[in-house]
């Protein structure tokens, strides 16, 4: 019998769901093994008999909380999809400002019609079984996790820093080029795509299980960043974590 999948979105740009739709050829092949019963971004018909829920987006409104809990109740397996769902992501930038001020900046005079709460990852509300991190997610990794679930295996995503993949990509270290990078504490799996393309790591995949953030902060300071610069670096994607506070 085919497994029934659902895709759900909370606060985010929906880019991770779009990435799934970008898989085109792979998606068609995947449909030999699964029924996608709920995917607002892609189809009109919706059923709530899904077994595996892929959840995108962070939680930023009270009204999202019961909806997320209902999904958790229905699904046997919940997979957080992308930086917002896994970490809170860029939405957490607003957490460092009073919520009223956020509402005023975004909605102006209409602010009184909206509510907002500090942004948070879905794991702060419900238990999450597996993660597909990244901003956006990596296609290969999404498929790897999905295939593992279909085979009843535990999905393996790397628990080592980006440095491993960056070195293997043959890159000269960002620090050696006079810049700084969050690669040494960030979970690999992206093949160091940003660094290979001339930028540095922003930490969109979140930290490894046991990151040495003290050592990383010392290294960043040694390479010219102030404490404020360092916090700003971490806050881009990891504002929900203690390291950014």
């Amino acid at each position, binding site marked *: 019998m085919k497994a029934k999948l659902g895709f759900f979105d909370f606060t985010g740009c929906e880019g991770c769901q779009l990435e799934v739709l970008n898989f085109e050829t*792979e998606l068609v*092949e*995947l449909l*030999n*093994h699964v029924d996608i019963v709920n995917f607002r971004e892609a189809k009109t018909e919706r059923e709530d008999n899904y077994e595996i829920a892929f959840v995108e987006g962070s939680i930023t409104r009270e009204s999202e909380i019961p909806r997320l809990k209902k999904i958790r109740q229905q699904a046997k397996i919940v997979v957080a999809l992308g930086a917002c769902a896994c970490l809170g992501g860029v939405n957490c930038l607003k957490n460092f400002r009073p919520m009223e001020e956020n509402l005023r900046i975004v909605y102006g005079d209409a602010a009184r019609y909206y509510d907002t709460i500090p942004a948070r990852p879905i794991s702060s509300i419900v238990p999450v079984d597996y993660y597909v991190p990244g901003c956006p997610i990596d296609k290969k990794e999404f*498929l*790897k996790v999905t*295939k593992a679930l*279909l*085979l009843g295996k535990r999905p*393996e995503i790397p*628990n*080592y*820093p980006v*440095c*491993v993949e960056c*070195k*293997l990509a*043959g*890159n*000269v*270290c960002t*620090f*050696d*080029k006079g810049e700084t990078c969050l*690669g*040494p*504490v960030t979970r690999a799996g992206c093949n160091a795509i940003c660094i290979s393309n001339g930028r540095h790591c922003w930490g969109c995949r979140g930290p*490894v*299980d*046991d*990151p*040495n953030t003290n*050592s*990383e902060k*010392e*290294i960043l300071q040694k390479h010219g960043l102030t404490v404020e610069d360092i916090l700003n670096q971490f806050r881009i994607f990891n504002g929900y974590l203690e390291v950014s506070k």
Partner: protein
Amino acid sequence: MENKIIEKQNMAPFVDNLINAEAEVIGPKRKDGKYAFDKLIETGELCLDYDTTLLPPKMYLFPPKETLIKFELGKEPKVEPVAEAKPLILFGVHPYDIKAIELLDVAFSTTNPDINYLSKREKAVIIGVDCLNPNPNAFCPSLGTATAETGFDLMLTDIGDSYVVAIGSSKGEQLLTKYAETREASQAELAQRNSERQKALARYKVTLNISPEELPQLLGKSWDSPWWKEKSEKCLSCGSCIVVCPTCFCFDVQDDIALNLKEGERYRQWDGCMLADFAAVAGEGNFRGDKESRFRHRMYRKGKYIWERYEKLGCVGCGRCASACLAEIASPAETFNKLKEESK
């Protein structure tokens, strides 16, 4: 060992002939202010006066990721071993990397011969070049790896207007006869080679204050040293040291399955003892779950365990790890010297 001379103006035609005729030629090329081994398209890319490369040339014999078997699931599963190898010329390999490959040769051929490594190794020609501009973190002279007498097919030494070429194998000699214009080396030129090698020794900035033979014993009694904890506090567990290492040969094995959920492959990829999950096992256990024990283990491998198993040191002093380590803790020389000092 027989020695010839290739004049500098004849080096480019030699390399070009190899590129055009024999096999894929891999050599050190410039990369963002550093050097990296890569496939040579033309001679001009080759930099024989490099200090060291980002990654070691072992990656061409033991690739970072490599398929071991292909399989097809079903009532009667099909399994097919894969060992791909093609003729390869590694051009411009430094003596310390040659010594590292000699260690890999032993490690991959004893007890359980590794056909994936050995089939690549068999088809590889190694053309070495003496390292006259060492990396500031290198300490090869202390380990006897600044020059090599074995492990190469040809070995070049830049003596100014020409290269002395030591012939290490009949395969090397054949390449030379077929593709290079050479002449006999004079006594004066051989003396010049010695002098260049001597001058290079003086350019190394790091020295080991202990002879390599004493390392296993020193490490043996340093298990409880406070150094391990103190120094490893800053470790990022980022694996940079083990990825750039020419002697590390550990790997992880995983399966990848196609979208049809039937066909798949089993592959291996580099893994290493400085990564947090390296010694993790089922049931959430981890034999080396803290930075301190991982840091100590790596140093024990480099100076003791490998020696005890293969009678070769697990470190060739190339300095790549020290250059790659942002936390500045990875240099085996620093640790060995510190332990020596503590033991006094």
